[in-house]
């Protein structure tokens, strides 16, 4: 019983430390100091993020984290995982900054501490999801990542939508976790172990039970990723949840799950299983991208609109998984990084407008450029980046993920990518609808000129910088690629 193994989980421990600090602050700080909760959390988390970014360089001397595993292979860490966690940290930091104004609003002010605590626990769950190499820990991670979120979704007590969203989220989440557990039980029955490494090492013939097991696991993971047909909760929940929670849900939670899905499917279910799930995923990707797009076309509520957009984005992210290669993982991580910034930029604008005017409909955005040019431009950049328009980062991430997807060179994959590409046209259409509303619609502006809060602006500036720089400066991609290269073999 070597409890020093906990030290391997430095990031998780750091996160728990932040969590505890927040918890203690919230519980014991004097009433006056409580008004500083939000900045304190942001600073703490920023500190945590920066330390994590710099840690390997300062402590280990080398810039890569040595692959390590602990708890008998139940937990691993390496440069790749370290990097993706850092990416998520940055995203969370932006979410935190963007949420300051909302958290300090009259309805939430009493519960702001809990908001941060819950958020940090879900992040911890995501960490665990990605790092665990055992289905039990994985599921605990997954549940930690989703259950507290239900509470966060229900945060706006004065809004009915928030309640409805929470109910829908929770019930679907529970159902899906039951399905997932069922699937895992079959995996256990087939391979005799719940350790990923053992599963990967076991060789099995294809039998219906295996198919059912994989489908159920995929359904459980697909629920979090909102892949079609497991996606139906997404729109309602995104729409009903507080915008900060929606943005968190749409980028961080999705990103972490995508990586976890990669690890489970590409690695744990790697060799013998892949021909089974390959075609499932193939169909699901097509469905996800297409149906997400088709629904997005007709949305008027901005949050709901972005929900469907994020569904189809999830389909694109899964293209990295179908390639099953280091390049796929790299592209996926990069895509997530870019997606975080693009989507958060969009949500940042939506949040700023919602906080200041309460408007959420796309029609309210008509003529926004006349009154709030900076917000409009930010939104436009976000839309372009999501649509994959160069020179913004989204273009690069899309290109890289397509590139990774066709790497195996089969015709089927080319067809898949072609379908995905054709769908980008549809997606461009609806992203342009937003741009059109803001820039082109001749109507009188609905939203008056206002000055957004400092925190909102900081959040948006970070996102805009990310959108512009992430693609053009190749170092981000190269770092991720190097991380994946060094860590890919030790992922299991």
């Amino acid at each position: 019983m070597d409890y020093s193994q906990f030290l391997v989980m430095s990031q998780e421990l750091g996160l728990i430390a932040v969590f505890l600090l927040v918890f203690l602050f919230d519980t014991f700080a004097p009433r006056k100091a409580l008004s500083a909760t939000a900045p304190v959390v942001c600073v703490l988390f920023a500190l945590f993020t920066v330390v994590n970014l710099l840690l390997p360089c300062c402590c280990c001397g080398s810039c890569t984290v040595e692959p390590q595993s602990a708890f008998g292979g139940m937990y691993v860490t390496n440069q790749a995982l370290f990097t993706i966690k850092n990416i998520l940290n940055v995203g969370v930091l932006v979410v935190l900054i963007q949420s300051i104004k909302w958290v300090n609003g009259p309805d939430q002010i009493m519960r702001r501490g809990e908001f941060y605590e819950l958020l940090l626990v879900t992040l911890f769950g995501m960490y665990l999801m990605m790092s665990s190499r055992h289905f039990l820990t994985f599921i605990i991670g997954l549940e930690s990542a989703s259950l507290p979120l239900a509470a966060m979704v229900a945060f706006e007590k004065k809004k009915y939508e928030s309640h409805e969203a929470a109910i829908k989220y929770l019930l679907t989440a529970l159902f899906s976790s039951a399905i997932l557990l069922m699937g895992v039980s079959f995996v256990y029955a087939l391979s005799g172990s719940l350790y990923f490494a053992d599963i990967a090492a076991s060789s099995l013939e294809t039998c219906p039970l295996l198919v059912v097991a994989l489908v159920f696991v995929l359904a459980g993971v697909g629920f979090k990723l909102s892949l079609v047909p497991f996606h139906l909760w997404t729109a309602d929940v995104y729409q009903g949840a507080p915008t900060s929670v929606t943005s968190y849900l749409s980028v961080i939670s999705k990103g972490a799950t995508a990586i976890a899905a990669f690890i489970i499917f590409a690695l744990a279910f790697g060799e013998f299983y892949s021909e089974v799930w390959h075609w499932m995923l193939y169909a699901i990707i097509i469905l996800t991208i297409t149906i997400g797009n088709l629904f997005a076309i007709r949305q008027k509520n901005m949050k709901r609109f972005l929900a469907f957009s994020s569904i189809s984005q999830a389909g694109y992210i899964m293209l990295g998984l179908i390639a099953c290669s280091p390049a796929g993982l790299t592209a996926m991580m990069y895509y997530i990084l870019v997606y975080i910034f693009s989507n958060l930029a969009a949500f940042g604008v939506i949040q700023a407008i919602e906080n200041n005017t309460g408007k959420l409909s796309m029609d309210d955005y008509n003529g926004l450029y006349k009154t709030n040019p900076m917000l409009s431009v930010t939104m436009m950049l976000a839309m372009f980046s999501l649509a994959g328009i160069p020179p913004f980062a989204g273009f690069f991430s899309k290109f890289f993920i397509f590139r990774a997807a066709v790497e195996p060179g089969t015709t089927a994959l080319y067809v898949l990518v072609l379908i995905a590409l054709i769908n980008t046209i549809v997606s461009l259409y609806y992203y342009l609808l937003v741009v059109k509303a803001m820039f082109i619609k001749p109507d009188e502006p609905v939203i008056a000129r206002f000055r957004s809060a400092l925190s909102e602006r900081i959040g948006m500036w970070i996102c805009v910088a990310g959108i512009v720089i992430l693609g053009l400066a190749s170092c981000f991609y190269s770092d991720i690629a190097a991380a994946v290269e060094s860590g890919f073999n030790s992922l299991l």
Partner: protein
Amino acid sequence: MDSVGSYIIYGIVALSIVVFSVLTVTTRRILRSATYLLFTLFATAGLYFLLDYEFLGAVQIAVYAGGIVVLFVFSILLTSRPGDKSEKLASRRRMLGGVAALATLAVVGFAIFAHFSSCQLAPAVEQAASVDMTSIGHFLLGTEKFQYLLPFEAISVLLLACIIGGVVVARRR
């Protein structure tokens, strides 16, 4: 487990699982539903005992039957007046549910059947692991392979979060 006695016990357990499960979801009184759930859970615990996982059976009774069902009952009492009768379900929804349930039964049942009746299973050659309390304690707090300290710690965080979440949600303000 060749004895007739164990067969009888199995029969009772299995039958009660099936019957109470069905009753749980078909009764129109919500409180009864909770009660049937309790019976189902007891039956499950019985199954665990039957398979020699006494610790698990105990946990099942303590946590599930003792904790969760009580929670249910409280919440039912909170949200509905006793004796409230669920109105008759729309047949469309029942059909939908039936189709879904039967489809699940068919697909998963077929998969299980196909696997466990045709596939030649590797016989359980391994020596069954001991399930006494000492070893369970070791398993639960060990850091080696097949030991579960990490999930144990992790789930504590989850539970804490759920408590916070529950408090936040349920608090009036």
